[in-house]
């Protein structure tokens, strides 16, 4: 029993990172039914951006968030206004195709700018610091990742439930035409949602880069984990996304106990099982 406690705990901590990957996907799917295939590649782009800031300034990786978050949010706003807005409609295929194209462009752009060498954000003492909890060791960085992921979920949930802009997000998600007719500027609102999504992408990128190596082609796997977390949790629910991220993390961690090669596959199997039993995820928003 005690031997399972540690992998479960490590899995929950890993789930914090997967939740970070998933939050932005959950957000823009919830508001405008858009699936961004380039989501993982933007996470990697943010990681490269943080690396460039770190090289130029010598700041701590966490301090690069001060630059990477606003820049990515601005990029998200512009991407929605200039590109994605033209693809939204009754047909779900155009946004998939366009963001797939964006993903390819980002991967090859990063490859020619930074080569395929793997990079990492050295987070100095944060990388190795750990807390002792009885017989268990908890890494400070994974713990911080989980805490930030939970804070992001809580913040977005509160924003959606309690603020005027959150009301507008929910109303536009329910019925964009009626929302427009009562005066909601839907193009601006969609771009704000994308900007928020990209702010979470920036945070996810920096935490990913502090924890593991990344290269120009690291994006699609991040998209996959984020996507699985969203689907396990149920579309449209932020707390569900957190649950989905944690379940995926624990599944992978337990799978790795069986065999290191089994880690990723175990996550996919749990994803598949949950989808087979509850096709709408664990906590779908009742529609």
């Amino acid at each position, binding site marked *: 029993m005690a031997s399972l406690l540690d992998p479960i705990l490590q899995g929950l901590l890993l789930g914090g990172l997967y939740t970070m990957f998933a939050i932005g996907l959950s957000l823009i799917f919830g508001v405008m039914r858009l699936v961004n295939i380039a989501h993982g590649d933007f996470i990697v782009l943010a990681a490269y951006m943080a690396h460039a800031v770190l090289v130029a300034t010598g700041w701590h990786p966490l301090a690069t968030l001060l630059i990477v978050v606003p820049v990515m949010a601005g990029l998200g706003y512009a991407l929605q206004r200039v590109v994605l807005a033209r693809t939204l409609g009754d047909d779900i295929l155009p946004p998939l195709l366009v963001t797939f194209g964006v993903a390819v462009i980002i991967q090859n752009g990063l490859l020619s700018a930074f080569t395929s060498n793997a990079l990492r954000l050295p987070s100095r003492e944060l990388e190795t610091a750990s807390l002792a909890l009885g017989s268990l060791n908890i890494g400070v960085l994974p713990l911080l990742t989980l805490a930030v992921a939970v804070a992001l979920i809580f913040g977005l949930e509160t924003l959606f439930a309690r603020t005027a802009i959150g*009301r*507008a997000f929910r*109303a536009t998600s*329910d*019925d964009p035409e009626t929302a*427009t007719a*009562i*005066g909601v500027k839907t193009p601006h609102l969609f771009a704000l949602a994308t900007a928020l999504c990209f702010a979470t992408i920036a945070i996810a990128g920096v935490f990913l880069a502090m924890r593991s190596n990344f290269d120009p082609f690291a994006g699609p796997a991040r998209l996959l984990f984020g996507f699985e977390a969203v689907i396990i949790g149920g579309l449209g629910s932020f707390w569900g996304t957190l649950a989905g991220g944690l379940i995926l993390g624990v599944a992978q961690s337990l799978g790795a106990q069986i065999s290191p090669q089994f880690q990723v596959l175990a996550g996919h199997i749990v994803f598949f099982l949950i989808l087979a039993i509850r096709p709408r995820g664990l906590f779908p928003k009742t529609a």
Partner: protein
Amino acid sequence: MPDPLLSIDRLSSGYGDFQALFDISFDLQQGHVMGLIGANGAGKTTLFKAIMGLLPRSKGTVHFQGKPIGGAPANTLARLGLAMVPEGRRLFRSLSVEENLRLAADHGRKGHWDLGKLYRLFPILEEKRHQPALSLSGGQQQMVAIGRALVANPHLILFDEISLGLAPVVINDVYAAMPDIVGSGISAILVEQDIDRVRKTADMLVCLREGRKALQGPTAAIGKHDITVAYFGE
């Protein structure tokens, strides 16, 4: 005579290649209530959507308070003071009663109507303000839909079949609010199947038939026979 509040001149519109409205023209004066009648499929809802900027106008002009509003998106028109109570109410399902109203108030204009005055007009809404909007009865949902238009303090409200699917006694409750609404200076266009009710409420009538204007005039000057002819043709 001052500029009409709403002036429509040879307006045509439709869905894609399908033309649903042909050369519609009429003026609505400030403070007046117009009844827009016609059989199902005559183009009444299409006309509302074309006025609100929710459908492209293929031809003709729309002036609101003397200014042309052709081509403006719906959210701009809402800010200018144009509101719609859509057919089927279209309340936001994930918002409570009060959130539906607040959203409209946030994006509307300041003026006579606020949540407090609305709750005095429809006290039941205050009682149920924290419930999900779609958990209310049909009549109460209609009050929310009307309230959503009112708290934006528009100059003109387009009411699309507000009695549809409601019991007669509930329809009476909903229509009982009309004098207060018009009394606050809001003009209205009313799409309604119940001709007698329209005749009691509206100052003027426009009847559409197959996308064309079949009849127009002051309510007092139009007899039942005229309406029958306009509905079904000679």
